[in-house]
């Protein structure tokens, strides 16, 4: 297979925007369609930019800070669990409305979309396929992620405001479980 295509498939599978979509919808349940689309742009942009940055500088950065990928996984899991608690209770830890959304969108982008898995995959791929095809693949995968996140608007219209409210509680629980998985994978248990 073409290296670009191979890298794209691997990255898209591990970024798995379809499983982030319900979380993204819960997060943006109170927004208007336009704002939700903007939040999707932002999440995809942050996810893509982080992954490109990490593909290039990740190995050096981790070494310089003396951080292992596994620590990163545990930390990401703890952050995600805090987001999950907010979903479940229907509250927000941040004070300002604007800031709250920004922080949360960033947490959807990293570590949920661009998690330690995607970062490790990108580093490993670039070691075998070369840096350029992997970076191109990251850009394509981020764009595909954006398209998936944009499905949030039609889906939101379909389930309605009340459906979104109820779904966000359920998603909180599942996100909590995903967070525990992150921590467990990091700890190796």
């Amino acid at each position, binding site marked *: 297979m073409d290296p670009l295509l191979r890298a794209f498939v691997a990255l898209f599978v591990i970024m798995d925007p379809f*499983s982030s979509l319900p979380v993204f919808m819960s997060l943006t349940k109170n927004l208007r369609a336009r704002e939700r689309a903007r939040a999707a742009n932002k999440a995809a942009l942050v996810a893509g930019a982080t992954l490109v940055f990490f593909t290039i500088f990740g190995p050096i950065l981790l070494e310089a800070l003396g951080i292992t990928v596994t620590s990163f996984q545990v930390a990401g899991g703890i952050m995600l*669990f805090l987001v*999950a*608690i907010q979903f*479940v*209770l*229907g*509250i927000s830890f941040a004070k300002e409305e604007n800031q709250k959304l920004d922080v949360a969108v960033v947490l959807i982008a990293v570590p949920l979309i661009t998690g330690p898995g995607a970062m490790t995959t990108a580093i490993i791929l670039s070691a075998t396929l070369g840096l350029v095809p992997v970076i191109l693949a990251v850009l394509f995968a981020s764009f595909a992620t954006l398209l998936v996140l944009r499905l949030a608007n039609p889906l939101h219209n379909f389930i309605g*405001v*009340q459906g979104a*409210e*109820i779904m966000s*509680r*359920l998603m*909180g*629980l*599942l996100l*909590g*479980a*995903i*967070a*525990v*998985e992150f921590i*467990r994978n990091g700890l190796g*248990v």
Partner: protein
Amino acid sequence: MLREFAFALASLIVVYNPFSKPPMFLSLTSGMSEHEREIIANRSVVLAGLIGLLVALFGSVLLEILSVRMSSFKIAGGLMLLIFGVQFGFGLSLNGDKKRKYDIAAVPLASPLLTGPGAMSTIMLLALEYGAPLTLVALALCLLLCLVFLRFSKIICALLGEQIMEVMSRVMGVILVAFAVQFVTSGLSAL
């Protein structure tokens, strides 16, 4: 079988906490006629049952899609239950004021007041452990009890008095914390 059913029913009753419902229901439906109250009580319980049904049937599929192990869900669900138990136990509420702009039978009555996240995780855990049929029968019984508490809110409030209801609700909270700890330890023991 009977023991499992009793456990399922008891844990559902604790997490649904019927004693906490009448005062909330009365304040949410204040100014409504007796007839309207009846309709809303029925509708919210049916909706709560439907949500529970979906969770019981599709919960494990969702976990599989997200590639989450059941033990991880036990830990996460247990921790969430712990938060709810603490809220009941101390009689506090961590989330702000309830919005009332929608049809109240669905939000907030059916969910999160009846089948909220605590109930959802309990239902999912029970369905994973004992199977969906047993869980659903227990859920039906528990919701029936909730319906009684909603329908006779006024009488129950008058009969028991607010203080006794408050105490009962807190006792439920303490038991819920114990259940939560049990879920977490059972999840941790799979590590």
